[in-house]
């Protein structure tokens, strides 16, 4: 019972603010073609497809229908998964369970979004209860601003540290041909941009991107034939939260912590700072690159700033976080959490080119969304 599952290959579009040259199925097909090319496979080799995005962003209902011809799912088993910011992670988890169940051997996981065709904040606002919460929670940034404020106050973290994380993310993105925001910034420049919602400055926040990501997974029995570089999925853990933002305690990111603890337990990790080689985490705003390190148990509460200030999470550090530039550099929402898994698997496979971290044996990726829920994956070379 329960087969092992590996990531075989992945493909991404070159994410940017507006892809006027392609429609939605064409955008998706770009990522699918690149994944198939990397895997040296054709669509005939794919047993099933899992796809996801958020319908309100493009205004396409049953969006897997139109997408089918770009996704390669015509006359294949296909399922659509959608869970907000976590969509890409939820798509990946669904593809994982396709293989782990023994029902399918090769599965194509696709996440996409074309945010230039919509108003992302307008779309996100509708996640909240229409009677009580919708009027007060302005899209994604509202909840994040509450958490950031609580965090910075509780642990006395200045805006400069948060801005440093934002600067470093955009610098990492310069090594990633798929990244959207590749910028040389200074801390002063970040701090000089307006607050979107205090204490989050414009350049602390993730962009809205057009882009797609495709990941091919295979069961143990096929993975070894299909690649010499499988990135094995050792743990898949999801933790959800209460429905109402008002019920969520912003002093502790319990779903991320709970997911990480469980993932470490499954993967046999006791000292994540030393046993992980790279992290691709879902960082919707730059304060999470400080605060959420603590919930990943890389350090004690309040010590995230030390990891950032001492450069431990920079490209040259002991545990680089988001060599790709992360979500604050690239955010096609339905693809975003799948990109984390794709980037983590590229690192394990030694395929990350300019952004490769040396000698990666074990990687963590995460997805964040909804009412503060999280999904965590652990990947390994063995």
């Amino acid at each position, binding site marked *: *019972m*329960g*087969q092992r599952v590996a990531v075989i290959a992945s493909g991404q579009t070159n994410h940017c603010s507006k892809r006027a040259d392609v*429609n939605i199925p064409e955008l998706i097909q770009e990522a699918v073609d690149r994944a198939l090319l990397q895997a040296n496979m054709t669509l005939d080799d794919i047993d099933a*497809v899992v796809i*996801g995005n*958020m*319908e*309100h*962003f493009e*205004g*396409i*209902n*049953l969006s*897997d*229908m139109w997408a*089918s*011809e770009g996704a390669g799912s*015509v*006359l*294949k*088993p*296909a*399922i*659509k*998964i*959608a*869970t*907000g910011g976590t969509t890409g992670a*939820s798509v990946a*988890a*669904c593809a*994982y*369970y*396709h293989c*782990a*169940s*023994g*029902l399918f051997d090769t599965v194509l996981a696709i996440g996409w979004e074309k945010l230039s065709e919509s108003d992302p904040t307008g*779309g*996100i606002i*509708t*996640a*909240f209860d*229409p009677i009580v919460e919708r009027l007060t929670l302005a899209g994604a940034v509202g909840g994040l601003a509450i958490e950031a404020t609580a965090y910075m106050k509780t642990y006395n973290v200045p805006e400069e540290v948060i801005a440093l994380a934002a600067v470093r993310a955009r610098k990492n993105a310069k090594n990633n041909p798929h990244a959207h925001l590749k910028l040389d910034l200074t801390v002063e420049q970040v701090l000089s941009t307006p607050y979107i919602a205090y204490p989050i400055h414009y350049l602390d926040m993730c962009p809205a991107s057009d882009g797609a990501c495709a990941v091919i997974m295979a069961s143990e029995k096929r993975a070894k034939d299909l690649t010499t570089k499988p990135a094995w999925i050792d743990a*898949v*853990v*999801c*933790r*959800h*939260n*209460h*429905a109402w933002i008002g*019920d969520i305690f912003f002093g502790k990111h*319990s*779903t991320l912590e*709970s997911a990480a603890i469980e993932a470490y337990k499954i993967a046999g990790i006791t000292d994540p700072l030393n046993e992980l080689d790279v992290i691709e985490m879902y960082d919707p705003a730059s304060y999470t690159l400080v605060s959420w390190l603590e919930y990943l148990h890389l350090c004690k509460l309040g010590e995230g700033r030390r990891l950032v200030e001492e450069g431990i999470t920079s490209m040259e550090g002991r545990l680089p976080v988001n060599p790709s530039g992360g979500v604050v550099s690239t955010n096609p929402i339905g693809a975003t959490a799948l990109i984390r898994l794709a980037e983590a698997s590229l690192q394990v496979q030694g395929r990350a080119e300019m952004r490769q971290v040396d000698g990666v044996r074990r990687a963590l990726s995460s997805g964040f969304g*909804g*009412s503060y*829920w999280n999904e965590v994956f652990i990947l390994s070379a063995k």
Partner: protein
Amino acid sequence: MDRVAIVGVAQTKFAAAKVDQNYAEIAYEVTQSLFNQTGANYNDVENIVTASSDFWDGRTISSMAVQDAVGAWLKSETKVSSDGTLAVLYAMMRILSGSFGTTLVLAHCKSSEGDPTLIGNAVFDPIYQRQLGIDLVAAGALQARAYMEKYNITQADLAEVVAKNLGNATRNPNAQRAMSITAQEAMQASLVADPLREYDIAPNSDGACAILLAREDLVSKFTDKPVWLSGVGHYQDNYYLGDRDLTDSRALEKAALKAYSMAGITNPRKELDVVELYDTFSYQELLWSEVLGLAERGKGAELLHSGVTKIGGELPINPSGGVLGAHAMFVAGLVRVAEAALQLRGEAGAHQVEGARRALAHGTVGPCGQTHCVWILSKDK
């Protein structure tokens, strides 16, 4: 392979507008009903797969509304943004993976909170099709006409489906549109999209459905009447209606063949005892029954007229009244699975098919059935 069984099912009564309940409340109602039947509580639910529609709910991340109702706090919950039959499949995968022993599946929808014409129109691509004003009903009318023309199916044939299913719905306390109506009367109903009249088209419903799945070794904790998941297939077809033969369905045929093969069925017409299929429109019961291999192509109406598919016939189709009796988007497929399970447990009440041991449940999504999922459920392990 491990075996997975349905150990409990629950539905709300379906209604045109449940103004006294919000999404979380209809979800809570079925979750509690499920717990009451099985003796389970939230601690027994190891993970949750929901199905709901952002468009129909008017709420992005439509599953967020039901997190507390399903007990998702610090658990794994995920949402299939498609028909409930596919949520059951994903729920089964999670158990077969070895990661979970039980999975709660829940689908909810309140059609009353949206505009079905606009929501249906948004299924069509914004470049070529949407401006035509086409919606899911208009697309169904195109398919109905193509099917009727090809096989000389008449308005009277469609009306017979209506009379049978809405009559069956009078025996189902959860159905929304339950009517003793003759085919003659159904043919007098107002024309909505030629050739489809009012009762040829499923109503828009509010409601929820939940089922609990368990791995074989956990089944006895919850029920002494498990229903075993013994075969499943799901496939997607082309998007543009003009790229498909609307009088047939390659996706449904492949899904059925895979499900039959898994379940060891070679002659579905003889080996199945009851069928619950997703008939958004009257003609679809005839068309889908042909593609499922229950009748030859073009002979679905003959099967109907022979009485085989009525309650008391050799192979009843939609004894619950089917989707013509209640249609909450994405919930309706899960209801087909729940109804099939009730039949195999002998708990279908006034619409019980005597001695049912093997059932087919079918779900579909997309214009004219772009994606299909076919389940075979068994009373015997």
